[in-house]
């Protein structure tokens, strides 16, 4: 239980650090970073077998942030774990930074794959998982997709491929926050029942509250408990979750915000943690 409490605290810290980091420039991909903070906390705080002192360790579990624009939330998790100094977070998106808006494995310690053009992370994560299977390794590969990202055809190419090759050490998530850049997913391209769709494609598919750390971790354990199928955990989330000026706002994919808004959001999160 204590560890789960720590995960909740870790998620809050990820949100705070992300706000502090993006606050420097006063703009960024707030919505999808906030909705993904809890799953990142569960993965990097509890589920993944990693060594922050040795990011290239071959025995590590891999993570592919296919919704690459949520990079700042991932950088916050990595910095909090010591992959690089926490102070470096404030360089996000500034000239010559190692922390670009979208993830780049050649720039940032701890980033396993470069992403940013939506749809591509499912294929590279599959390649890592399939490669490790061919090499008879037991590492897990985790993948985070956006819900809007599922508009891309490449996602469904990967959806066919992974069950065909029985990639049961691939555990994927969809951050189902119901919003994309231009509005609600149901108004732009209705995704329907994503869990059912992936189940129909042959995945072991679950849907949980994506802001409930216990539920997310429990789903990961369930996927690990079965063999022969890749896992898909659809996370029921809210875009902008935990950031008062972004939560419930229509156009919160990429936002500009004032220093005051940022300070208030951080203060509210800190108060929640007391």
């Amino acid at each position: 239980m204590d560890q789960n409490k720590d995960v909740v605290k870790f998620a809050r810290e990820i949100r705070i650090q992300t706000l502090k980091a993006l606050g420097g420039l006063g703009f960024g991909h707030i919505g999808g970073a906030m909705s993904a903070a809890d799953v990142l906390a569960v993965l990097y705080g509890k589920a993944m077998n990693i060594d922050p002192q040795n990011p290239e360790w071959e025995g590590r579990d891999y993570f592919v942030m296919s919704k690459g624009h949520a990079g700042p939330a991932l950088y916050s998790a990595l910095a909090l774990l010591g992959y690089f100094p926490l102070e470096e977070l404030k360089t996000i998106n500034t000239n010559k930074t190692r922390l670009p808006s979208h993830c780049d494995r050649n720039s940032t310690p701890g980033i396993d794959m470069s992403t940013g053009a939506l749809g591509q992370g499912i294929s590279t994560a599959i390649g890592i998982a399939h490669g490790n299977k061919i090499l008879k390794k037991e590492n897990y590969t985790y993948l985070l997709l956006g819900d809007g990202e599922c508009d891309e055809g490449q996602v469904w190419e990967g959806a066919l491929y992974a069950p065909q090759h029985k990639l049961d050490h691939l555990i994927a998530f969809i951050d189902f926050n119901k919003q994309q850049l231009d509005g609600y997913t149901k108004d732009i391209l209705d995704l329907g029942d994503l869990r059912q769709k992936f189940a129909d494609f042959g995945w072991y598919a679950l849907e949980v509250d994506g802001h409930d750390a216990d539920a997310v971790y429990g789903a990961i354990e369930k996927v690990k408990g079965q063999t022969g199928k890749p896992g898909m955990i659809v996370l029921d989330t809210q875009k902008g979750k935990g950031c008062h000026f972004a939560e419930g706002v229509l156009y919160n994919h990429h936002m500009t915000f004032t220093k005051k808004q940022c300070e208030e959001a951080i203060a509210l999160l800190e108060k929640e943690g007391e």
Partner: protein
Amino acid sequence: MNHAVVKEHKIESIAMRDAFAETMADLVKENPRIMYLEADLMNSVGMVGFSEEFPDNTVNCGIQEANMVGVAAGMSAVGLIPYTHTFGCFATRRALDQIFLSGAFAKTNIRMLGSDPGVTAAYNGATHMPFEDVGLLRGIPGITIIEPVDSVMLRDMIRQTAEMHGIFYIRLSRKNAVKVFADGSVFEIGRAVKIKEGTDITLIASGIGVDEAMKAAEDLEKKNISTAVLNIFTLKPIDKDAIKEAAEKTGAIVTVENHNIHNGLGSAVAEVLAECAPVPMYRIGIEDEFGEVGSVDYLKERFGLTPANIVKQAEAVLKRKLR
């Protein structure tokens, strides 16, 4: 680089695809980390036997070129050495963003074979006839683009790239090529190959254009025009020194390529000439048209990839040189 040129204009006894399959089998025996990824054209490229002999090194991805490139990128990130194959039109047009990001930008390690370059797509017609594949890839930083001339060079390229790290695109003609290089010849990626010396004009050719250029050179010599022939098989990075040297030595250039003259060999050569050694030149190739169905011989005539057209354009360039 250690090569010898065979000037007999004879068709090789082995098909390019069979040379590819044999080389891949040899490589896998030496290094089990070699992987062959296919997009449902295994039978077309002669790799069914390979897949049966080496099932653990083969993945038929199905008809999904974009996913295949991403999977190859991911596999290379854990130390495997992937080769992918599909027709050149699909290898590039359908997977360009994946080649750019999951491949080149991510600095992963993939060898992509695109078969049936240009007119060799023959009876599959315009939809399958890549006149633009090189041009699409040429703007991607760090990528290496190779067009083997015959099976000797193909084997060497398949073998050499296994030891290298990067994103490689290899234009693969599947059928029997005209033999240009003696068995055992080895080449240096990034360095042009001197086929024939000459002092009046240089024909710079790639792929199936090399044999046509060699025949044209023989015809030009009969007209007392001393003609050099240079094969540029590495379309990127281009061998600037060899182009500059050819321009300075002969003062006139004709390029021959089985590709759109926009953004292929001719464009790359013209860029170097304009900056380093401006001399009269002419680009033979597809003049911004789509392909069509037909035999390779018909299509060569149709698009000017013939010794007669090369001679005609060389003489026209020489007139500009003398002016």
